[in-house]
């Protein structure tokens, strides 16, 4: 399937969960947050949440900032 990840078209395996996606990209979930189609998905829902074709996913992390 094809999703939009942080604004870029991205191919993902069909059964990808949010926790799987985050661990794949970040190597862990500490410091990560996810927005799917404009809504913040709570951390507790990540293991069950299966990403669907065409969804817009924003993967957010902590970066340097004052």
């Amino acid at each position, binding site marked *: 399937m094809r999703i939009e990840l*942080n604004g870029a078209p991205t191919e993902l395996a069909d059964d990808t969960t949010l926790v799987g996606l985050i661990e794949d990209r970040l190597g862990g979930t500490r410091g990560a947050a996810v927005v799917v189609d404009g809504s913040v998905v709570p951390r507790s829902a990540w293991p069950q949440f299966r990403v669907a074709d065409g969804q817009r996913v924003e*993967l*957010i*992390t*902590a*970066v*340097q*900032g*004052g």
Partner: protein
Amino acid sequence: MADQLTIAGVSLSSRLIMGTGGAPSMQVIDEVLEASGTALCTVAMRRHDAATAGSLIDVIDKRGVRVLPNTAGCRTAAEAVRTAQLAREALETDWVKLEVVADERTLLPDPVELLDAAQLLVADGFTVLPYTNDDPVLARRLQQSGCAAVMPLGSPIGTGLGISNPHNIELIVAEAAEGGVPVILDAGIGTASDAAFAMELGCDGVLLASAVTRAQRPALMAEAMAAAVHAGRAAYLAGRIPRRRHAQASSPTEGMATF
């Protein structure tokens, strides 16, 4: 020592809060966190960038420093609330440094959006530390809204101009003390004397980033800031002498030898 900064019931071992923005590398952030002795540092929330080397949160966790996410870049209350909610999921903390700025040129807080956001976030269970103008009335309104601290600017972010209106900072400190809310001088610090001055005015802490991260030797400046905050706090507690128009001898005026 019992004289600790306490925010929302949490005692912090340092009155210096470090911003992590502006550092040239993770290595410098690590050095600065250590040299400053800070117990609390800010981060921003942004899209994951695969090109970034190293994990900021790993560096902060390793140093045992508590993390304070900010809402930098937000222009409206709605944006700030969403960013705070993201940060809560990401970092598993209810604490947020609330920043709602009006424009890029001044980065001054937008008071209307700021107060609105503070009220919404307090109602949503956040521990809100608002970056605010040096306006005693706005600080009062934020305090009345249930914010855990008020964080007036000394001067605009990144300018290093120091504390441009010390009288207003003193007014904010006096009113916050009555309400038991700590005052953190946030933004505008240029060098160590600015941080000491903030503490001498009665601020409970200082938050700074650029003054350290953009210094020629960041770790050394972090050390200087820690010493300045400590010295300023001690001077405030000790109570300075009143200013006088004319000189007052410190040596005895009686018993001079006669020649």
